[in-house]
């Protein structure tokens, strides 16, 4: 059993924050532009991630981004790599960042998509009713993320977490949706979504 302290107060990598916010090292709050620059180092300057297993943010629904930043800040969805960036985020900065990325144009990642896998993923997706929440375009809406044009490796990574972690976060819909699917099924779903 985790101690309450550890669960309630996620660890902080202060060093990393200083690394990304050199101007902020002198205890100044980074500007929005500085924050966006720091985000872009991993998530891509245009919000389309060039990096393995790092999600693209371009064209994600504003509320989805805002929710995730807040859940990371609160420690409900602890992501260690993100902790230094979110720990002091105020609501208005959260909303400004979310608005910025929601307005950017999503682009395919350039990973090799397998058409046969994508076709199989489309069939699985029908039975799992992905389009019910993520919309037929898979562009997402409100609190539901865009999965169309998301990175394949990130989608696989994320789907596996939903399937395998008994504590997949505060929302349970995805865990129910992917329960019982094989690794191959999840890969097919990822290729299907990324190609949309």
């Amino acid at each position, binding site marked *: 059993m985790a101690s309450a302290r550890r669960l309630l107060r996620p660890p902080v990598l202060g060093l990393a924050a200083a690394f990304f916010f050199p101007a902020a090292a002198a205890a100044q709050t980074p500007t929005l532009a500085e924050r966006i620059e720091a985000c872009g180092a991993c998530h891509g300057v245009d919000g389309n991630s060039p990096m393995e297993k790092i999600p693209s943010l371009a064209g994600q629904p504003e509320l989805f981004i805002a929710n995730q930043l807040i859940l990371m800040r609160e420690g409900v969805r602890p992501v*260690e790599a993100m902790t230094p960036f979110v720990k002091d985020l105020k609501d208005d900065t959260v909303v400004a960042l979310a608005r910025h990325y929601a307005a950017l144009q999503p682009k395919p990642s350039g990973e090799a998509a397998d058409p046969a896998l994508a076709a199989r993923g489309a069939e699985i997706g029908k039975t799992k009713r992905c389009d019910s929440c993520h919309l037929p375009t898979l562009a997402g809406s409100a609190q539901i993320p865009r999965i169309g044009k998301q990175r394949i490796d990130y989608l696989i990574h994320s789907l596996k977490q939903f399937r395998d*972690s008994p504590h997949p976060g505060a929302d349970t819909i995805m865990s129910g949706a992917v329960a019982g699917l094989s690794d191959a099924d999840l890969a097919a779903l990822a290729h299907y979504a990324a190609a949309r």
Partner: protein
Amino acid sequence: MTSPSLRRSGFAVAGTFALLAAASFPAAAQPPGFSKMDLTKPAASGQDAKLRPHATPNTVTPGDKIPVDKVKLPRGFKAEIWSQGHPGARTMVEGAKGTIFMGTRLIGRVYAITNKDGKRETKVLLQGLTQPNGLAFKDGALYVLAINRVLRYDNIEDKLDNPGQPVELTDKFNLPDTIHHNWKYAAFGPDGKLYIQVGANCNVCEINNGTHGQIRRYNPDGTGMEIVARGVRNTVGFDWHPVTGELWFTDNGRDWAGNAGPEDELNRVAKGQEGAFYGFPYCHANGVPDPDVRIPNACRGVVLPAALTGPHSAGLGIRFYTGDMFPARYKNVAFIARRGSWNREQKFGYDVVIARTSGGKARLSPFLTGLLDEGKNEFHGRPTYVHQMKDGSLLVSDEQNGATYRISYQGRTAKKK
């Protein structure tokens, strides 16, 4: 129990910067905690496939956007904003010294709201919990229930600035760690026991009656568990009738079986009927067999509800009124907050109704309305729980706007709001 490191790294992103590189996610050690047996057939429901739960904002709603001016009440009653700026406002319990403790779901916080010079001061008491909806107060201690976790903060009102380490009761209560429909509701009964629900961890499926779809009661230390009600899909609100001492609970009906229902329920556990069966998953509402989980004589032996509370209306908090401020006709009447529908094309609920009980039956009538615009099919707020204050006024939490409304009675001669 999952190790803390596994839980924390559950969503970790494998960074490419050495400085940040979190290890990639470890291989699955446990099967998912969710039913693979969900038998929902949405396509057969004839409902709009795009229906989905409405998002709850996790950011502060500015004061001028809180829709208190939309609220309509019977003549003589008045609504005002009592507290605001606490996103995700749901459950409310009052400490002996007057602190209102408030539970949430997604945002994972427990708030403490105090009165200072006639104004409310809101603190984030706890954060980072998974859906801490279950709160109960007894002998100076706050019990916090977050899915299967049970924490007790002794003398909490003396240390609101630094609650410190809780007494860990999770293992003693040994609640299932499945999350779906298991954001907790908890309350101490007149017998001094802590009553806790364990919801069905699916929309509709065969559940293990020994572990899920129940209301249980425990001694405050987690010993002496007894099952009080079985076959209960998803109750997140209950209270005891002030005269009969019987337990009454709201229950949310299944989704994806049509816009018309099956309707949600208000139920009673009659004296001596503890452990009775309320029908899930075979029999819903006032005797509707489930279309997906079929058995012969689906409603035989099922306790039918005291009242139907509307299709997909999501009746959550319930409180019997025992105060002196409201007119005598409200004495011992139950106030029920209906959070409002999502699995219904024409929205329904988003209000507070009253239930007048008589024996094992109840009649509903409107109380707080105005938060649903039926013409536009839009809602302005979502009442989730009700709490009776010491002065007899009623607090209603609005989860959508992170606020509470205080409902007071001004008298019949008062100008209609």
